């Protein structure tokens, strides 16, 4: 089967897919599983991709679908208490301001659908139209999710957060 997709073309997209997946799932393992599944699907469906069209958008669409299916199936999502309390992304060294940690926590508290939109806009710098196409939602929904995500994070960073959970026992 001859397709326009080559290993090199895909490899060039992997760092971005991983970054997005990491921010989306907050777990290096879950993120890499997601990327792996996405890439496997990409190879299987390689004939469906039209050379010359936006490969990144296509891959992000695949990943979104894999992610959604995963959420629906709720397949072994091995998130332990430790994972939630200490996200995999260990912030590097002493030069990371406290606010970055808050940002990470705030992001984790957003509903997944808002997090997706926010990350595609902020990290991937996609246009709203691209986000709408990738997620398969109307552009108005993109805007309202984006707005809610940003306002929520903004309030969170301003200090309106819930007190940290304390386990008794």
């Amino acid at each position: 089967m001859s397709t326009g997709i080559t290993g090199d073309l895909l490899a060039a997209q992997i760092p971005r897919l991983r970054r997005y997946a990491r921010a989306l799932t907050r777990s290096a393992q879950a993120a890499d599983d997601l990327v792996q599944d996405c890439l496997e699907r990409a190879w299987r469906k390689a004939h469906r991709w039209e050379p010359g069209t936006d490969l990144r958008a296509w891959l992000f669409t695949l990943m979104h679908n894999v992610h959604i299916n995963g959420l629906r199936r709720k397949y072994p999502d091995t998130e332990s208490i430790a994972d939630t309390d200490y996200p995999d992304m260990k912030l590097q060294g002493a030069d990371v301001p406290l606010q970055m940690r808050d940002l990470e926590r705030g992001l984790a508290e957003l509903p997944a659908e808002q997090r997706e939109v926010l990350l595609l806009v902020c990290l991937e710098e996609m246009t709203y139209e691209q986000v709408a196409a990738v997620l398969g939602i109307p552009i108005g929904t993109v805007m309202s999710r984006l707005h809610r995500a940003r306002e929520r994070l903004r309030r969170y960073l301003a200090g309106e957060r819930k007190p940290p959970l304390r386990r008794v026992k």
Partner: protein
Amino acid sequence: MKNQLPTEITDLHAYVDEQLSPEARRRVEEWLANNPEARRQAADYALIRDGLRGLYAPVLQEPIPESMLRPETTRRWLRPLGAAAAGVFLMLTGAWFGMQLERGAGSFLAAVPHTVREAAMAYAVYAPEVRHPVEVPGDQEQHLVSWLTKRMGVQVRAPRLDDLGFLLLGGRLLSSDDGPGALLMYEDHGGKRVILYACPTEADGRDTALRFAQEEGVSVVYWTEGPLSYALAGELERTGLQALAESAYRQIAI
């Protein structure tokens, strides 16, 4: 959601995300000039965007796992093998580090109690651990302390180092030359970690004052107090580590 956002709001987002035409951009800028609240809003949105980029930028630099470069041959069931290999690698790295310690230090190590070596090793193995630095997280401190106390057979205390900027991240049980050992890990706001290691005092061990040792960049302050020997290890300069150790020493001695 059916209700549409006001145009000013969608424009504000598009302004921050640089998705406006030049004319629309000028229009929004004029509007912003007379609207301090919207300006703050836009600045906050930009801050969040820049923060997210900074937060996840390091992922772009991570080496790509082999399995991703040839995904068509990978199957999910093969993956645990990768994890096992990582475990073996970790053990080998630990052993290698131990050998370097022994080799490089020579007579030095012979002169210091095994507590120091074990603490330096525990630090080297666990402090860089991102996913599972501890077995029991610090927010379950009571459970952690009673568990370790039970396993060690003597009262274990988790000193508070909050005043010096280090918060309890959690702890784990280890094995030491003299029986069960306890590791408590602390972390400051910048992510710098230190560990407090405790193991049973050797049969003929006596109480000692604080002593300082250093090996392979890991500084260790150690002492013996009754049934337990302690060592605080980290990549801190001596005075900083000493201040932490003194605080821990005072709290444990109570």
